[in-house]
């Protein structure tokens, strides 16, 4: 029978939430790694029982955990992320050169075909790859060595590489996004990269249309139409129809175009979800109402999805990796909040129920659709 498994990373541990295909009764397991920050938990599409978790701490650094039984038991694997060559410098907040220093793994993207191949997006921004199930990591250094690399600057949350998207139709093409450098694409399997930020406008940087320096919060694509990208930028919801070569704004009638998450419906490439946040200084929903907005037209026209979500006195945030969509029909949509709630919709967003209300602040949500 079909099942779903929701993988939740929080400020104080990881949780595994499971349900059958009806998605109305949930089993909650955890915390795993209690007390540690879990930035991301991600399963392999090639072997759903293979799961990777990024466990970190300001005191004790980075630990990588791997499970071979769907997140029930775990083993530590390699935690050495050495930049290729002499790392050099990027810009610090004050504009001065600052040495590249590994801090943590923000995001895993496992291969679709091989459970032992997994990519890691890290802070300070770089892309790493493992081909031995996380035992060892090698930098995909063509990205960081792009001639703009020395000009990249951190966003408020650190200079993190937080988004990795494979093109399902072209194994040489990968998209990544970095706060606050922008979006990049490789068309040669990672050897070389180009910034894909034309059309982005960021008023907070000296040249608002610069090639790099844009605080991209998240990018999403639909696997059947990978040339169309949707982006939640610091401000502005954007769309590209040419694999990132150019972008147009599709914020339309959103109550705020600031936010972190963005995702695409499992079966409708033009149905997109965002969670508007009031502003970059407030980091909570407008009017104290937690609303997911859905566009069925690829942007510009948005409808508020509120049924089952708190519509008063709600001041949580939804962080960039904290939304996921399952592959069932109708697809399930999931998101987690900094207040510790994980909400689920089993009807593509029409209605919502909390799976769990009182976890530590949620950093990431992923979902696996299991046979």
């Amino acid at each position: 029978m079909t099942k779903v498994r929701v993988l939740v990373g929080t400020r104080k541990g990881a949780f595994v939430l499971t349900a059958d295909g009806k998605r109305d009764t949930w089993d909650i397991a955890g915390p795993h790694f209690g007390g540690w920050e879990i930035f991301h938990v991600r399963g392999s599409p090639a072997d759903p029982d293979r799961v990777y978790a990024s466990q970190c701490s300001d005191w004790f650094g980075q630990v990588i955990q791997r499970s071979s039984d769907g997140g029930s038991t775990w083993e530590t694997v390699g935690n050495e992320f050495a930049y290729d060559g002499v790392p050099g410098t990027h810009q610090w907040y004050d504009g001065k050169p600052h040495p590249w220093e590994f801090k943590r793994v923000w995001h895993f993207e496992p291969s679709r075909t091989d459970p032992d191949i997994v990519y890691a997006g890290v802070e300070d921004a770089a892309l790493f790859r493992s081909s031995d199930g996380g035992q060892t990591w090698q930098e995909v250094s063509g990205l960081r060595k792009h001639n703009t690399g020395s000009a990249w600057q951190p966003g408020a949350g650190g200079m993190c590489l937080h988004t990795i998207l494979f093109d399902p139709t072209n194994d040489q093409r990968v998209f990544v996004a970095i706060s606050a450098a922008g979006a990049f694409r490789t068309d040669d399997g990672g050897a070389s990269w180009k910034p894909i930020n034309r059309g982005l406008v960021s008023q907070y940087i000296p040249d608002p249309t610069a090639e790099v320096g844009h605080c991209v919060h998240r990018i999403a694509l639909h696997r059947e139409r990978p040339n169309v990208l949707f982006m939640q930028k610091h401000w502005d919801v954007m769309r590209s129809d040419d694999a990132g070569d150019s972008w147009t704004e599709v914020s339309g009638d959103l109550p705020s175009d600031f936010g972190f998450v963005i995702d695409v419906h499992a079966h409708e490439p033009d149905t997109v979800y965002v969670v508007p946040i009031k502003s970059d200084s407030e980091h909570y929903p407008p009017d104290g109402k937690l609303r997911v907005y859905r566009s069925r037209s690829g942007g510009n026209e948005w409808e508020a999805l509120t049924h089952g979500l708190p519509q008063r006195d709600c001041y949580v945030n939804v962080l960039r990796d904290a939304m996921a969509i399952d592959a069932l029909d109708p697809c399930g949509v999931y998101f987690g909040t900094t207040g510790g709630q994980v909400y689920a919709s089993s009807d593509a967003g029409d209605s919502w129920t909390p799976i769990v209300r009182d976890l530590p602040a949620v950093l990431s949500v992923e979902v696996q659709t299991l046979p």
Partner: protein
Amino acid sequence: MIRVVLPPHLQILARVDREIRLEVEGPATTASVLDALEIQHPTLRGTIRDAASRERRPFIRYFACGQDVSHQPPEAALPAAVASGEEPLLVVGALAGG
């Protein structure tokens, strides 16, 4: 035999009790004790010292016989009571007040 006490998060990570007992070859120093600790418990590599540079992580301190020995050179001898196993070497995570 050297005794080492780890902070709770690392006890959980390494799946060990509060105190670990190690056989250390040669003089007992923070470097030799932590080398032996990481060989016996590889999962601790990188959590107390940087895996590449072997430098102590910023929010970690080492205490021995009531003294903070964090700033001694890694090759400096630990007190005789630690070398004999009478007293443990404490690995401590920095405490935040407030």
